[in-house]
């Protein structure tokens, strides 16, 4: 059984008394100990999806309108609030893009890690501090006994993100949701954080759901990949299969848009036009206005997911067609 199973999750934003749908029924699973990557451009709904799973949409203008989120066999959406809070931050933890704003500047990092331990575990303050030091060591922070008493502003961006990871790991989560964890970091620091996440996964056996706009980051870290566009998952496959044979024209376009440092191309094959906004109205396949292989049917009927292989699905009427 999958550790996390999201079924037909639909999310809408309340605007002036009306619900505007922004995520249109996404389904995916994260297997225990594996990494699922969700990739897409801004406004594709990838962050909303992760916030919905973490239950962080409550009290905002955003509503989950249908679907279920099964974590470890329990539906998070119907669970009593108290039971859910016991899971969040313990069995399921999250790290964010901006490691500076996610840490409270007036508390020492050790206190903040200890705090999240004390919330979920019945241990003494001294034990929590011991555990905080142990966690800092786990995320390869040099001199953890000294750094435990540092304030967030005394640490570099990469070190702060390591502290965030340490905090997330405080209660040995089964699932770590990482929303653009390295986007704010420099490339050399990013490489270290990605390596660290992989090492930690090997050591702890946790599953990771990694949200990123960067196909390179996804390709390096993920076992399975889901590509999102305009609030829908348009292609899913194991990473190696996806990156060797892309079936959806959007995924292919995204790939061709990236200038890579390994080789030179005369001209990038850019996807024309602009990224549609969440909540915008689109008929048929959401990608058809930008698609080179669009035909009349594409503007009328929204394609369902078609199996390209037993493990590879694409929401396209003509998947993989112009494959050379």
């Amino acid at each position, binding site marked *: 059984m999958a550790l996390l199973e999201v079924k037909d999750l639909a999310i809408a934003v309340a605007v002036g008394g009306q619900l505007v749908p922004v995520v249109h029924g996404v389904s995916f699973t994260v297997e225990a100990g594996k990494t699922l990557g969700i990739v897409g451009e801004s406004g594709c709904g990838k962050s909303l999806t992760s916030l919905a799973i973490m239950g962080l949409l409550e009290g905002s203008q955003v509503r989950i309108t249908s679907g279920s989120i099964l974590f470890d066999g329990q539906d998070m959406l119907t669970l009593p609030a108290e039971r859910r809070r016991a899971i969040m931050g313990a069995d399921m933890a999250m790290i964010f893009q901006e490691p500076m704003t996610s840490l409270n500047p007036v508390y020492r990092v050790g206190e903040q890690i200890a705090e999240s331990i004390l919330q979920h575990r019945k241990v003494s303050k001294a034990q929590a501090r011991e555990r905080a030091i142990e966690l800092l060591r786990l995320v390869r922070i040099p001199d953890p006994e000294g750094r435990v008493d540092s304030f967030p502003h005394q640490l570099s961006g990469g070190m702060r993100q390591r502290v965030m990871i340490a905090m997330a790991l405080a209660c040995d989560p089964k699932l770590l949701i990482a929303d653009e964890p390295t986007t704010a970091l420099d490339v050399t620091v990013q490489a270290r954080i990605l390596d660290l996440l992989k090492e930690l996964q090997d050591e702890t056996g946790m599953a990771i759901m990694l949200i990123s706009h960067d196909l*390179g980051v996804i390709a390096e870290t993920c076992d399975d990949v889901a590509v999102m566009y305009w609030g829908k998952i348009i292609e899913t496959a194991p990473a190696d299969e996806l990156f060797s044979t892309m079936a959806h024209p959007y995924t292919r376009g995204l790939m061709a848009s990236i200038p890579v440092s390994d080789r030179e191309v005369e001209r990038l094959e850019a996807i024309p036009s602009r990224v549609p906004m969440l909540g915008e109205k689109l008929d048929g396949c959401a990608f058809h206005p930008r698609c080179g292989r669009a035909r009349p049917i594409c503007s009328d009927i929204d394609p369902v997911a078609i199996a390209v292989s037993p493990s590879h699905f694409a929401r396209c009427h003509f998947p993989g067609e112009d494959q050379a």
Partner: protein
Amino acid sequence: MSAAPLLQVEDLKTHFALGTARPFGSGRRVLKAVDGVSFSIRAGEVLSLVGESGCGKSTVGRTLTRLETASGGTARLDGREILSLSQSAFRPLRREIQMIFQDPFASLNPRLTIEQTLAEPLRIHGLAKNRTEARALIAETLQLVGLDPQVMERFPHEFSGGQRQRIGIARVMILKPRLVIADEAVSALDVSIQAQVLNLIKDLQRDSGVSMLFISHDLGVVRHVSDRVAVMYLGRIVEIGSRADIFERPSHPYTRLLLSSIPRIVPGRKRVEDLGEPANAASPPSGCAFHPRCKFATDICRSAQPLAQPLGNEHFSACHHIAELQKDHA
């Protein structure tokens, strides 16, 4: 390619006074954001400045456009020194050095229509006799950057990020400058839009023959647009050379670290050795600023600042051990 350079920068320094370390303390600290940078750009050439945040690459661009004040060094545009000119004497020259900014949402005045934004540089530099002429020029430039001329009546908030960046490019190109400084010009854009804007910048550069200083942290983008590349680390250029030199024959340990850190879609990136993070520019390490992260560092690296060593064919590298490293690499 031996023509006289359009822009010749020598020993450029931009230092910022930081506040005192503590309230009521004494002794001002100095942030040496740019500390002795030299390079040149020929007519029609694209030079990229690449490096991580805080390395001073943006400050170089902002100093050359006089948005920051240089603390030392010279920059000659067509032989004419521009850093020592007064702001008012420099103003007419601004037409020749133009800048594309990173954030397409912040770089347009929200209260001005596109026409007003684009007419301003024309008015200042007296390039249009009247409104009709200005509108014709604006329409032509908007078409050049791939926008419908009819958009000129609208306000910035009505456009997407990619369109706004095109407007920002139009504001630059309408002056027909000789040097464009693009400061992270595509970094804020989504991948699919970034490719469109990169193609546009490349086309415009090639068609107009304008020289370009392309500042970016993204090595993929840099490889795509540049003729030559300069790699910066903590206020200095550590390696400069042709695109092929930097990407196929990188010599400086920092350049190699950068290149090996990029996430690859094709599997096979080796794990990066954990050698710590970039030092703070406010308190740079002694000697070679990179030595705390460099596995080849020896005593000389800790005490003496390395000079740029020629490696042939305009390829320079500022490393004490470059000769040995080159041998290993070959």
